[in-house]
Each structure stands twice: as C-alpha cells, then as structure tokens.
C-alpha cells in the first residue's frame, strides 16, 4: 500500500512538470543555503570542541589580539617548560596574508622544524618531512590549502614577502587545520624588513591534564608579570572563542538566515501542495467513492509533500556538498582558521529540515482533503 502511495504521489508530481520543477528548484536553492550555513556552523563547532586540543594552552602577549602585534620573547620557553604538568612548549610565529575578512586567507605557522610533529602529528599525503627539516625555505601545506591553490611537492609558493618551496602536503581531520602551512620559524622571523629574530607570536603549550589548565595558565602569566612583555594564557578553546568573537557574531546571524531558508521551503512547498490539492478535489472524491478512506488521502498528500521537499532537499544538499568540497572555503580571524565542515551531521540536518518542512507543509491540505465530504467535493468540481 505504501509503495503504491509513493508511486501514485510520484506520478502526481509529474502531472505539472514545470510547476514541480520550479518548486523543487526553489526548495533546492533554500536547502543549499541552509546546508552551507550548517557547514560553517559545524566548522566552528569542530574548531572549538576538538578533543585533540583540550590539553593545549595558547600563550599570547598581554593586551594584543593580532598576530602582527603579539611579540613574545623566545627566551620564555625554558621557564614555561619547567612548570609542573607542562609536556612541551612550541614557539610559533604566525603570518597571515590577509587581515581582512576573506574566504581565501593563507596562514603561515613558523615553528622550529624539529618540533613540527610536536605541535601536530603530521600525516603526510605526499612529499617528505626530511625535505621540510632540511631546507630553511621549505613548507608543508594542509591539503585544503594545497587543493585551493593547486600546490604539490616541488612547487614554489609566494605570499606577501615570503617565498617557500612545498616539501609536502599533509592531511588533518580538524577543519581549519588543513588550511595552514607550516614553515621554519627562523624564516618568518627574518623574512620581514624588521628582524624579529628571538620573538614569536605565541607559544603552544601541551599539558598532561586538561583539569590543570587554569592553574598552569595562571602560573605562566604570574611568572612573566614583572617582565616588560607580559602574557595572557588561555585554553585552546577559549583562545579560539576570543579570536573569532566578531566572526562568531556574524555566524550566529547566519543561523537566523538558515532558519529563514527553512521557512522559505515551508511556504513554497505548502503553496504547491495546496494548489495541487485544490486542483484534485474531484479526483480525491472519486478515490473516496472507490473506497479510499480519509486516512489514505491524508497519507497520499503527505507523501506528495514529502517527495517534493526531499527531492529539493537532496539536490540542494548535494549541491552544497559539491560547492564546499571543491571550493575549500576557509574563514580566518587573527590567524585562527575556520573551515566549512560538510559532515554526515550536515547531511542529516539538511534531510531532517526538508522532511520536517515537507510534513508540515502537507499537513493542512492533507487534512482538508481527508475531511471533505464526497458529495460536496463532487458538487464543487
């Protein structure tokens, strides 16, 4: 019976091909936007809730919020290293090619080459780590950045005043991380007109227990309180939240836009289903005469509504998946990268939104069709 209803509903959709196509196109467009926004929000979630960074602290220069202005002396490293609970300290020099909002920001993270595996376990897809450590102008780039800029090992790549040779391409499961390039710390320190040798943007401090994060942070900041360059230490999550604060405000606004997309789908589907039902009052009366009950008509119209919404939802979600996969979009704020993360969760959200709107849109017309009297319907038509 259910299969027959789906078959019947499908045939009904093909009755007015252009109208159905326009409706599905409208739903697909709205669902494309919805999934795009969901992908961005998912990226933010993954960046802030990444389990791997729960035991990482970021030390920044106090009252500085931009990679260009935070200048921490490298000599702080041994002192931090001695604090109980600290596993490793990696000095990082951050260089961002674009301080404005952009979907194509490139971030260089200058690190001592021998410590690159400490800051992140490098999973190379191509190239070699030996080439990276052996050459001062070498870089290993994340696969999203490599895909966006068409880079492969052996290529040269120029950003701002820096020219690097690609030694390898690495993979990361964390959205955003595969949009950066690791370079030699010294190259970034010497590369600009003002020599910043001995100074870095931040320290990445790995600790043995996330529960000690607050205590160790306090200890670090206390340690350099009387120095000319003071520090502010935060957990990785808090650091990302503060660095991307303005961006987050924008992203919260996009959630509102995502909800509007769902409302748009609802209105569009409801309008089409309503017109479809009005046109077929007589046909529904005939079906009731044959023996179809109100609940059969109700189910039939709900299935039609669901098919319309799901068809649009599938097309829109697939289009968003393709756009995000091939676009490799990346947002950056103060050196922190946030990628659009198109995961099964986003697909599920897109499909759920389509299904729910399909159900809601079909509900009232389906109820009307199921309750109308046969003689009244035959008389009206």
């Amino acid at each position, binding site marked *: 019976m259910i299969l027959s209803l789906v078959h*019947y509903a499908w*045939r009904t959709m093909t*009755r007015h091909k252009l109208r159905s196509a326009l409706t599905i196109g409208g739903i697909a467009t709205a669902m494309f936007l919805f999934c795009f926004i969901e992908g961005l929000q998912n990226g933010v979630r993954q960046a802030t809730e990444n389990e791997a960074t729960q035991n990482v602290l970021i030390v920044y220069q106090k009252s500085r919020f931009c990679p260009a202005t935070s200048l921490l002396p490298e000599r702080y490293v041994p002192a931090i290293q001695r604090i109980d609970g600290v596993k490793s300290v990696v000095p990082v020099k951050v260089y961002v090619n674009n301080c404005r909002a952009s979907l194509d920001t490139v971030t260089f993270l200058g690190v001592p080459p021998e410590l690159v595996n400490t800051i992140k376990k490098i999973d190379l897809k191509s190239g070699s780590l030996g080439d990276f450590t052996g050459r001062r102008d070498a870089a290993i780039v994340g696969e999203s950045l490599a895909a966006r800029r068409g880079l492969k090992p052996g290529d040269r790549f120029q950003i701002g005043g820096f020219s690097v040779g690609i030694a390898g391409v690495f993979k990361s499961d964390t959205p955003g991380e595969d949009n950066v390039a690791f370079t030699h710390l010294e190259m970034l320190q010497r590369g600009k007109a003002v020599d910043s040798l001995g100074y870095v943007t931040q320290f990445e401090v790995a600790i043995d227990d996330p529960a000690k994060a607050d205590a160790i942070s306090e200890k670090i900041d206390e340690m350099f309180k009387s120095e000319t360059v003071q520090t502010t230490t935060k957990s990785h999550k808090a650091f990302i939240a503060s660095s991307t604060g303005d961006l987050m405000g924008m992203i919260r606004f996009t959630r509102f836009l995502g909800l509007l997309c769902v409302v748009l789908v609802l209105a569009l589907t409801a309008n089409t289903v309503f017109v479809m039902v009005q046109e077929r009052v007589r046909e529904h009366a005939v079906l*009731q*005469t044959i023996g179809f*009950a*109100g609940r*059969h008509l109700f189910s039939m119209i709900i299935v039609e509504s669901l098919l319309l919404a799901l068809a649009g939802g599938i097309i829109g979600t697939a289009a968003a998946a393709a756009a995000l996969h091939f676009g490799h979009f990346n947002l950056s704020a103060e050196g922190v990268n946030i990628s659009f993360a198109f995961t099964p969760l986003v697909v599920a959200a897109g499909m759920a939104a389509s299904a729910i709107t399909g159900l809601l849109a079909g509900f009232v017309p389906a109820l009307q069709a199921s309750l109308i009297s046969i003689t009244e319907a035959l008389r009206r038509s």
Partner: protein
Amino acid sequence: MKQPLIELREVTKSYRKGDTTVTPLANLNLDVQQGDFLALMGPSGSGKTTLLNLVAGVDQPTSGSVIVAGSDIGLLSRSKLAKWRAHHVGYIFQMYHLVPVLTAYENVELPLLLHSMSRAQRRERVNLALEAVGLLDRHDHYPRQLSGGQEQRVAIARAIVADPVILVADEPTGDLDAASAEATLALLNRLNSEMQKTILMVTHDPKAAAAARRSIHLEKGAIVDAPEQVLVAS
C-alpha cells in the same frame, strides 16, 4: 419472499444550502432484489443522484435506514463506510473520472490496493476486468490516449475489478456518442445477466432505461410511478 439486497425505509435526505434547507429525498421506501437492473429516471433535481449516492454509501441519510447486503450503512462511521464501499460497491460516473496520470491498468488496479492481495493476484484480477470490457490490449494506455467510450469501459472495469455486489452508474452514457452508449449499455447488461451484478443506473435517456430490467421515476424526492416490485414512497 427473498430478502431484498437493498432496502430503503422512510429515507429522508436534506442539507443546508445558504439560508435554505434543501430536501432532495423525503420519506422514500424502496426494495431492490439481488440481480436486478434498475433505471432511475426523472427530471434534474428530482433526487436520482442523491438516491444513488445513499445506496452506494457515498452519502448518508438525514433520517430513515439504508440497508444494503444486510448492513445499515447509515449507521457506519466514515472509515467503516469507506471500507464497506471498497468491498460492496462499484461506482460508474458520467464523466468516467479516470486518474489522468495512471495507465488503464493502474486505474483499474486502484480499488484492489485496498484489499489484501499480492501483486500477482492483483494482476490476474485487473487483466480479467480489462478482458471483460474488451480493453486488455490497451492496458498501458493513458486516459488521454483513449476515446470516450474506451475511457468509460476502463471505468467499468475499475468498478467491477473488486467483484462488488452492487454497481451504481450515474448517467453512464450521458457523455458518449450513440455507438459507444449502446456498447456501454450492452456491457452493463452482460454484467447483470452473466455476472449477476445488481445495477442501479441513473439516466435521462429512455433508450438507456429500456436496457434495464425495470425503471422507476422520481419527482421532487418521491417515486411517482411504481412497477410491481417497488414499494412506493409513503
């Protein structure tokens, strides 16, 4: 005397139309035996279609009882009445009312979707019904690819496919040319005589009425002439 298949007792049907109450049938009594072929005649507004709809379980009386095949269908709920229709009645409309996006086969199959049957069982029944109306070779045609007469034969196949005891036909030849009308009436006659279907047919056409075993005339909601077997309105 044998129990009638259809018994209408003191049936009144009225409904509101704006500020006025319309009563298309008043205190009507009628018995129809199994295997009968009854033509209902009368001017427009005389209550013919209302009577047909009451017998078919498409409408319910305001008062009185409509007993068909032992069930007082006036007492059934909406959903039970729908189930009853699926098992007992085949309805033939003047304008055929086939579903335009379904093939002849699929249109005929529709009533069987409400019965517990396998696909193979359904196929057998649909093919038998289409064969009975002489359209098995057109099973994959859509209504737009059929003539009016062929569409009506498909509609008749749809009405008989679930093997109902009663066929009701609302001016089944009203939209057909003379040849198609004659073929449709011959088909109804065959269904009555060979398959023992009890048929109630509304018609304005005396020729069509002549094809029935007997006919009754309604005027202003009452039976105005009564052949022997019919109880006249009180």
